[in-house]
């Protein structure tokens, strides 16, 4: 007699996928994750990290806010006066820094981040032309069980900007006039993020955090942020590296900025706190794992 369970057991048996098939899928998925390949539908390929979500109050409280600075308002056509002033000061300071790296081989960024109460360290060497982009992230479980190993990101070499990503050369082609930059970034949002303004704020943070943006572009990015209605100063903050900065918040995302240097020191959002330790040009990336 046939039982239902027997019939379903028998008919549900399928062969496993060959390793070569698994490998082909793996390449497509990795490419999509790094958002570079035209083989991936553009709306997916362009989708990148760090769109903000709910619950900000908890996360902001998790940062070490030592001296709250209260400000009011949030409507109008720009950040509130305190925030706009702070962001413009930070922008001017960033613009005064030496640099400009249109021809460097790699952009190296080091940060630490806290996720679910645990701290991890992240370093990435983004390749400019041809070389492999290498990620070293202690919070990245390795498929083979190796932890803390370097991971090569196939087709890496791009920088996140909210829902989109830019190559090194595209980054250097961005206008440094704040109005034109804002228009350029806004035209590239493609509906990503909870709303266009939030996404613009996220894109500004992405390009400040881990990219070879020139001093002039950094100044323009801060000016774009200063023009976002609703951005407000949330307080003096000491980051995880013991550095002092000022929190500037829009929606659920807070950037901790040092207005004296124009450096983005840290950011905080629900379930996530990152501290940006260092970034700069590099001639080399770590040697790759044997396989």
């Amino acid at each position, binding site marked *: 007699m046939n*039982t239902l369970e027997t019939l*379903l057991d028998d008919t549900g048996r399928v*062969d496993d996928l060959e390793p070569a*098939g*698994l490998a082909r899928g793996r390449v497509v998925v990795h490419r999509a994750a790094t958002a570079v390949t035209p083989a991936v539908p553009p709306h*997916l390929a362009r989708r990148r990290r760090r769109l903000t979500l709910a619950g900000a109050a908890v996360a902001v409280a998790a940062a070490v806010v030592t001296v709250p600075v209260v400000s009011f308002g949030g409507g109008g056509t720009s950040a509130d006066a305190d925030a706009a002033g702070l962001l413009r000061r930070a922008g001017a300071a960033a613009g005064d820094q030496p640099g400009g790296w249109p021809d460097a081989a790699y952009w190296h960024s080091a940060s630490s981040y806290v996720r679910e109460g645990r701290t991890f360290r992240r370093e990435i060497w983004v390749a400019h032309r041809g070389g492999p982009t290498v990620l070293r*992230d202690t*919070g990245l479980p390795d498929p083979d069980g190796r932890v803390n190993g370097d991971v090569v990101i196939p087709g890496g070499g791009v920088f996140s900007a909210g829902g989109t990503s830019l190559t090194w050369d595209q980054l250097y082609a961005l206008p440094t006039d704040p109005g034109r930059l804002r228009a350029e970034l806004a035209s590239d949002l493609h509906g990503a993020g909870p709303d266009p303004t939030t996404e613009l704020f996220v894109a500004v943070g992405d390009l400040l955090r881990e990219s070879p943006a020139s001093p002039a572009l950094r100044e323009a990015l801060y000016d774009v942020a200063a023009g976002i209605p609703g951005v407000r100063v949330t307080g003096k903050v000491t980051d995880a590296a013991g550095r002092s900065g000022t929190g500037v918040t829009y929606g659920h995302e807070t950037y901790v900025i040092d207005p004296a240097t124009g450096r983005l020191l840290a950011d905080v959002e629900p379930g996530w706190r990152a501290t940006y330790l260092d970034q700069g040009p590099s001639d080399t990336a770590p040697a790759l794992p044997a396989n």
Partner: protein
Amino acid sequence: MTNDASSDAELLTALRQQPELVGVLYERHAAAVYRYLARRCQPATAEDLLSEVFVAALAARKRVVPHASGSALPWLYGIARNVVRGHLRRARGRWSSGADAGMDWDAVDARLDAESQRALLRRVLGGLSAGERELLLLVAWDGLTPAEAAQALGIPQATARSRLHRARLRSQQLLDAPEGEPPPGLETLTTLLRHEERSV
């Protein structure tokens, strides 16, 4: 933290900020997701759709809510279900049928050796609604618990439990009915259900 120690739930939470973690999700679950696809599509199609599921997961990662069981599979199967439906809709064009939206019967037939087994499966599953069939197969073929299957299908757990109960009962009746005889009517079914409810 080791790979084993990092649960799916942690992984899904982290995926929101770190899209590269989709690679870990792939290493962990690609084989199971492939089997889900291969049970419902031709093997070559299943292979094509496999990466599509994970790319879609990447796009949907901001909305993920890990299941209480901790497994990412209910979420991934829910995405896979939509990917299969999308594929079949494209492939079938205007001949697309609502009842068969998530199943390529030709592929299922091609997989089964015996003609008699094909006929039985058709008879059993063909007598279920699409919703009942999807639920029954997620549990029987893909090994989800009823609660996990509920999440994959986006239906309340209580609905899933009663629907599964009904689906099993009806399938067994269809299986037991002599070939060519009409399946039991609604009245019979209702009587049986009442009987089962009392006995639970």
